[in-house]
């Protein structure tokens, strides 16, 4: 297998983000002169990116399988770019900021995932976005997004990481709002506020991340990942193996970034709304890549996290996993289900990181990217096929109309539900195993919570996913009557149809990865459950290799590991099948009427169906008070500050005069009281300037006397 060659590979890696960036620029400025508005150019570019990423990943995998170290920093043997200063300050100066590429096992895997998913999404979009009035903008934007994500993966430095992180936020904003520019589109109005909500909510998390970065920079005078890890270990060592408090604080702030970007409770509210964007966007940004960046951040900063932070991470992650899954069971919007599913799955990853199983979290991130992207694309295909219908209650029986989509969707559903042989099983199983392991070795509440919440979430996952499958693809088609009178004039065929080839090719590609992405069981048929050989990802990435040997694998006794493994295997299998079964009973076999359960649950159901009223709570506690505060301050500024500043000394009155002259009729309410003020102030001079000469003389004599008296008496 090829080995990493600094001479050429750094250039290749630079080309990876550069290609989509170039594509963006070209498409933005040359859209009119390009045939087909340049979609082929960008998709072709993405194919090259995918090829490079896979080629590079192959080197990493090979190294991993060979048990070799694979950890490359461009500033050591390639290039480093002084960002802030190029003369006068050395690249190593703490003031300066040097950008480089960090390419390790995790980065390689992530790069490959992003490259693959991006390519397929591009491909999918060619079919899906056909006829959109801002077609070229869409492609330009999604290209730029890809650039940002790739850059983020490659950055060796927290600040550069943050730059791409925010850039993704911008692209997310623009892409969610894609339909906001299209008045004809039914989701136009939703999109306008959804994009804003997404950006602002993640912005809160980003700001936390910024603060966390500042604290680390303040203490360590660097933001380079490797340096941070090393210094953090030294700092901990200096404190006798304990993490100082400031690191806990800083770690929590950093985790804030993850909460925002990866849609963890309570900042998850933006993600369901983000589904207003075009489906390829949901697939790529809000399922496979961008939201995973939060987890990736945890992966990059894991050595900085104190146990206290990790406990918080665990609780937040597992709670989010369970919480989002419950909502997922009640949603009827096909993309909504997937959105809550994404939140839930992200909770799994976050919880894994909190539990110390960073590697498993990352693994789940990879597999999730494949199957969730596929699910979304399938959903997109369904929506496309059903003429932009998203409500599952108006679908059904699509299996017959769209067989390819159905197959792909089924494969991905099995993957997410954690059915063995499908990719999701391997990663989710590891996470649950970690939870048990940690519960057994550390007697702490966070781990116990995770150990209870995660399997429950897995159960619900299987349930709602199969609910989706049953409602969409099985039974009879329920969309005809709605279409019958609602969209008479559309002129479309009212029967759902299979999507064109770019869509189906993309679906198939991703579905394949959804099946095989976890473990190459076809290559190792003897060990389909990966009991003996760990899946490829775990052979490539391990805790030691991830942080250059700085973080050791937690020691778990053989016995405990075995116990946990067994427990996890059985439980995850059990819950997956249980979920499937319940869904089958409810929605396919119709043995139980869902309505009865709803009635039985009463208020609980309503709470869940209304997303626990989180949006309403946030609206009431954050949004309204903020706007109220803003209005109050506006009032304060216009009436009080202006007043106080003017009132300092004489300005108020004089300004009053001026305004009075200028607004002769007192048109402006702000200066209405001015007439009176003018009178009051002017009367002093007026009092004396009576026009009567004898009074003048009197005043003058009196004034003169006062002066004389002052001179005599003082």
């Amino acid at each position: 297998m090829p080995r990493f060659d600094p001479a050429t590979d750094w250039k290749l890696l630079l080309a990876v983000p550069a290609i989509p960036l170039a594509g963006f620029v070209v498409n933005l400025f040359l859209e009119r002169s390009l045939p087909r508005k340049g979609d082929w150019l960008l998709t072709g570019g993405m194919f090259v990116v995918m090829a490079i990423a896979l080629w590079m990943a192959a080197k990493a995998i090979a190294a991993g399988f060979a048990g070799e170290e694979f950890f490359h920093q461009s500033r050591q043997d390639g290039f480093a770019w002084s960002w802030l200063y190029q003369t006068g300050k050395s690249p190593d100066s703490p003031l300066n900021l040097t950008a480089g590429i960090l390419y390790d096992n995790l980065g390689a895997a992530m790069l490959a995932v992003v490259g693959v998913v991006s390519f397929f999404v591009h491909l999918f979009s060619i079919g899906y976005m056909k006829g959109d009035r801002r077609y070229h903008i869409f492609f330009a934007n999604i290209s730029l997004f890809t650039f940002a994500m790739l850059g983020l993966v490659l950055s060796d430095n927290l600040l550069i990481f943050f730059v791409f992180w925010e850039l993704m936020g911008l692209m997310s904003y623009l892409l969610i709002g894609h339909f906001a520019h299209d008045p004809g589109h039914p989701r136009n109005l939703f999109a306008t506020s959804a994009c804003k909500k997404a950006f602002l909510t993640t912005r809160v998390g980003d700001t936390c991340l910024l603060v966390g970065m500042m604290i680390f920079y303040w203490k360590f005078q660097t933001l380079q990942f490797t340096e941070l890890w090393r210094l953090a270990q030294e700092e901990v060592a200096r404190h006798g193996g304990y993490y100082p408090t400031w690191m806990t604080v800083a770690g929590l702030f950093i985790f804030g970034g993850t909460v925002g970007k990866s849609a963890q409770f309570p900042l998850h509210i933006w993600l369901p709304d983000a589904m207003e964007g075009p489906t390829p966007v949901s697939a790529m940004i809000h399922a496979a890549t961008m939201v995973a960046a939060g987890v990736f951040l945890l992966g990059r900063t894991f050595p900085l996290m104190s146990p206290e932070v990790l406990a918080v991470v665990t609780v937040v992650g597992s709670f989010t996993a369970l919480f989002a899954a419950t909502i997922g069971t009640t949603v009827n919007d096909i993309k909504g289900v997937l959105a809550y599913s994404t939140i839930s799955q992200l909770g799994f990853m976050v919880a894994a990181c909190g539990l110390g199983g960073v590697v498993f979290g990352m693994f789940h991130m990879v597999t999730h990217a494949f199957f969730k992207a596929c699910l979304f694309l399938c959903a997109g295909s369904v929506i496309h096929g059903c003429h932009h219908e998203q409500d599952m209650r108006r679908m059904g029986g699509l299996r017959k109309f769209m067989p390819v989509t159905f197959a792909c969707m089924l494969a991905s559903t099995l993957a997410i539900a954690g059915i063995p042989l499908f990719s999701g099983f391997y990663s989710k199983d590891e996470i649950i195993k970690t939870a048990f392991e940690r519960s057994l070795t550390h007697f702490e509440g966070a781990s116990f919570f995770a150990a209870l919440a995660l399997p429950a979430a897995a159960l619900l996952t299987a349930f709602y996913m199969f609910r989706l499958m049953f409602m969409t693809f099985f039974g009879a088609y329920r969309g005809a009557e709605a279409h019958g009178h609602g969209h008479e004039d559309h002129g479309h065929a009212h029967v759902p149809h299979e999507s064109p080839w770019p869509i189906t090719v993309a679906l198939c590609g991703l579905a394949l990865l959804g099946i095989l992405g976890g473990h190459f069981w076809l290559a190792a048929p003897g060990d389909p459950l990966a009991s003996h050989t760990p899946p490829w990802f775990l052979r490539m990435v391990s805790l030691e290799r991830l942080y250059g040997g700085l973080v050791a694998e937690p020691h778990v006794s053989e016995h405990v590991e075995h116990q946990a493994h067994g427990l996890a295997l059985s439980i995850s299998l059990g819950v997956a099948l249980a979920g499937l079964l319940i869904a089958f009973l409810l929605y396919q076999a119709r043995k139980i009427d869902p309505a009865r359960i709803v009635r039985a649950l009463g208020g609980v159901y309503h709470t869940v169906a209304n997303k626990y009223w989180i949006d309403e709570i946030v609206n009431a506690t954050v949004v309204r008070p903020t706007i109220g505060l803003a209005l109050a301050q506006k009032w304060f500024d216009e009436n009080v500050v202006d007043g106080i500043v003017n009132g300092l000394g004489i300005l108020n009155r004089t300004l009053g005069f001026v305004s009075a002259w200028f607004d002769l009729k007192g048109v402006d309410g702000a200066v209405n009281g001015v007439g009176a003020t003018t009178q009051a102030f002017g009367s002093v001079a007026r009092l004396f300037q009576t026009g009567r000469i004898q009074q003048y003389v009197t005043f003058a004599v009196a004034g003169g006397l006062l002066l004389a008296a002052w001179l005599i008496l003082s």
Partner: protein
Amino acid sequence: MDAYLDQLGSIAPEITLTVFSLIVLVQDLIQKGRNSDAVGGVTLLGLSIAFFQLLSHAGDPSRTVFGMVVVDHFAGFFKLFTLAAVAAVVFFVMSDRRERKHGVGEYYFLILGAAVGIFFMVGTNNLLLLMLGLELLSLASYSLAGFHKGSRKSAEASMKYVIFGGMSTGVMLYGISLLYGLTGTLDLTAMGASAGSGLASSLAAQLHASPVPVAIAVVLVLAGFAYKVSAVPFHFWTPDVYEGAPTPVTTFLAVASKAAGFGALLRFLGGLFMRSGVGADVLQYGARIGLLVAILSAITMTLGNFAALRQQSLKRMLAYSSIAHAGYVLLGVATMTGAGFSAAMYYLAAYYLMNLGAFGFLLYFEGITGSEDVDSLKGMGWKAPAVSVAMVAFLISLTGLPPTVGFYGKYLLFVAGWNANLGWLVLVAALNSVVSLFYYLRVAKALFLTDESSKSAAPQPLFVGFLVLLGAATVALGIYIQPLQSWAERSLDILART
């Protein structure tokens, strides 16, 4: 006899002015008021002759002629500016057609007479001559203020002026009499000097015993000066008289008369308290009087500015503005230092320029709009851009913004004030100039910030050219500052021992 002629030569400008005043009077009588331009021309001729006579003696060392008349740089400074101002006023009268129906002979006669008064007022150390000069100026001014006989405003102005002026000069005379009693002399330079005249007492001796009598005498004399420069509390006549008097006369009062009052005031205080050679007690008491002046200065500028804020009439506003400016100049006076005095003189020079311009502007627009109201200027800036731009230069100079001559004057005043422990007064003055911005800007606002007016401006190229020239000078002297400043400093020779 040569010596006598020589002495006469020293007061040649005064003689010239007197002679020409009679000439124009007679000329007008002969011409029966039919050729007013010729009369004006002769007046200007007299003024220019006097001007060159002054210049020809400009470098001479200071000397006293006829026992009382002092010919020094200080006097020369004020005389030159007075001539320039008077010439401008005559020019204004000639440019204003409305003035022609009144007797121009008397007009120019009185103006020249007033100029003679100013010349003696600033050119003497003797209180008798000072008083005579001041009265000559006053009498001419009273009647000039009432020159529009048929106009009630003009008559009222002159009545107020004569009553206030009569009382003030009376009070001042009484003060002079007390000073005479305290020092036994009418010569300022001798008053402060230590007892060398064989008299039993002197200012120093009196101050040693008690300052109260000196205080009374000085306050009474200051009342007269305060009236002349319209400082609080002797300013009351100013707005009414300025408003009622014919505009060229107002110009004369605001510019020449007021500056002359300051010239005399500087000479009085400088000669009495600050001349080199006066005793320590006298110097110290001078500082005390300086504090009194400082208080007056603060009140004067504040009152002037605030009252000006409320005026609708540009003329009255400029009147209050001139009160405020008196306050600024008083700041320099209050320092009781050479630097302060020369700053005051510089500021007066600036004041000549910008107020001549501002009043000329007023006159120009009175001729067009027939009104003195600021509102009547609305949109005129677009009609008469050159004059209006010049006016803006005057206004920013009056406000005290660079790069104009007024700014530098204020700067010098501030520095002098600081050095003389008057930091608070500097602060008051600084804030006052902010207040003044309001009403000055109102004019600029009316001119330019409204749409073009429908009134049309009669072409008066000479007048316009004159105002533009003044405006250019206001700015140019604000950038090329050194000559005027050096001149003001050089002219401050009243403090030296003779």
